[in-house]
């Protein structure tokens, strides 16, 4: 047995390395996710995107937008947000998910990264995930796992987002573990007037504090 390596904070200077071109755009060929505005001129060396053809991804296109706030309610201006999700059919792009009866999407991996800006805002373009199994014989509601790191965070914080218009939320085995009064902190709501944009704000304190998970 070897001891697990301890976590350390990202510090404030990760953007020129950990944010890659297209990292926050899982369904298109934009550069969303990279931060050339924070990279010293002439030092954008990791700009080349991968070879996945993201425009051909199957599923309902959505955007997830939101703001992150620290425990005093101030915008968290330099967080790095990572997402992990299943494809539209409900399969993860990972050998561990070996359910051959559910198709993989060769153009969709389901992992993304976005850094928050001076207002604490972030944005992902992705697809609405399908349902995946939960403990026992349960089926989980569509959800996306969120990992939060950044300066001042010593060890990653974990949460999930669910979708306000999903009736499956009522039978989700993980949401059922969350005290009823706090469940709304995990539910993204449609932006008024924009059918495909969901808002998910993340609060590290206050009455609307986002529920975080220990896995």
């Amino acid at each position, binding site marked *: 047995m070897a001891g697990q390596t301890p976590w350390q904070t990202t510090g404030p200077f990760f953007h020129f390395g950990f944010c890659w071109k297209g990292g926050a755009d899982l369904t298109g060929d934009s550069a969303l996710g990279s931060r050339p505005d924070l990279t*010293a001129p002439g030092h954008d060396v990791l700009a080349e995107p*991968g070879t996945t053809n993201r425009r051909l991804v199957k599923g309902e296109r959505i955007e997830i937008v939101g703001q992150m706030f620290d425990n005093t309610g101030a915008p968290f201006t330099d967080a790095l947000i990572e997402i992990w999700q299943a494809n539209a059919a409900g399969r993860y792009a990972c050998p561990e998910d070996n359910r051959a009866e559910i198709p993989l999407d060769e153009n969709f991996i389901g992992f993304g990264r976005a850094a928050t800006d001076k207002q604490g805002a972030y944005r992902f373009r992705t697809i609405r995930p399908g349902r995946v199994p939960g403990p026992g014989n349960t089926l989980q509601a569509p959800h996306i796992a969120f990992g939060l790191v950044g300066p001042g965070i010593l060890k990653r914080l974990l949460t999930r987002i669910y979708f306000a218009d999903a009736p499956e939320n009522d039978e989700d085995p993980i949401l059922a573990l969350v005290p009823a009064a706090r469940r709304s902190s995990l539910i993204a709501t449609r932006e008024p007037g924009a059918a495909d944009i969901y808002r998910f704000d993340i609060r590290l304190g206050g009455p609307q504090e986002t529920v975080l998970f220990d896995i």
Partner: protein
Amino acid sequence: MKPFAPEEKAAQPPSLFPDFRSSVTRAPASAPLKIPQTLTETTGPAGNGIWERLMGGNATDLTKQYKGEPLGERIIVSGRVLDENTRPVPNTMVELVQANPSGRYAHNYDQHDAPLDPNFTGVGRCITDAEGRYRFITLKPAAYPWANGPNTWRPAHIHFSIAGPAFATRLVTQMYFPGDPLFPLDAIACAVPEWARDRIVCRFDLETTMPYWALSYLFDFVLRGRDATPMEN
């Protein structure tokens, strides 16, 4: 399917460590809620070729990213990504971000009065091989001041991000160098309990040092392993 073994919480920094000032407002107010690991947590971007498709290929020699040679002490940093049962973690992404040998990041927010080097950025990527090995050629970063107190300096360090086989095994950490006088004074390193603090310090190795070329430092990343008992589904 087996869940991942519990985090070794005693060896991890707490969320709130008041000596590290920015953790005071950025630690979550409430404790996290324990949930069982589901397929969401036991999967992650893993498998042959997935990281190349996602981000592009390796960038392991940080001294060859520009036409000219960067200035500073060339070093080799290598090792393995393992789980706590010392099984190798192949095909996983190891990302590196660091300051240059003057103690300056290629980042627009870095205000330290030290020069940038047009031939060095301080970013690298290495996808581990079948034995979980990674290897970078880089320059030794320098200490730099930070605003945690009136005269506080970060020990020389390299930031690393390791994906691991699952969302549950993710690790972001910093690697320090042996014998650094700033290490015992550093509020970020000292957030790790003293008995586990040597786990974030690399080891100088003469064996893999390349004569007349570069010193070698070894560092293994140890991620959560598989639990012994299967999940209930």
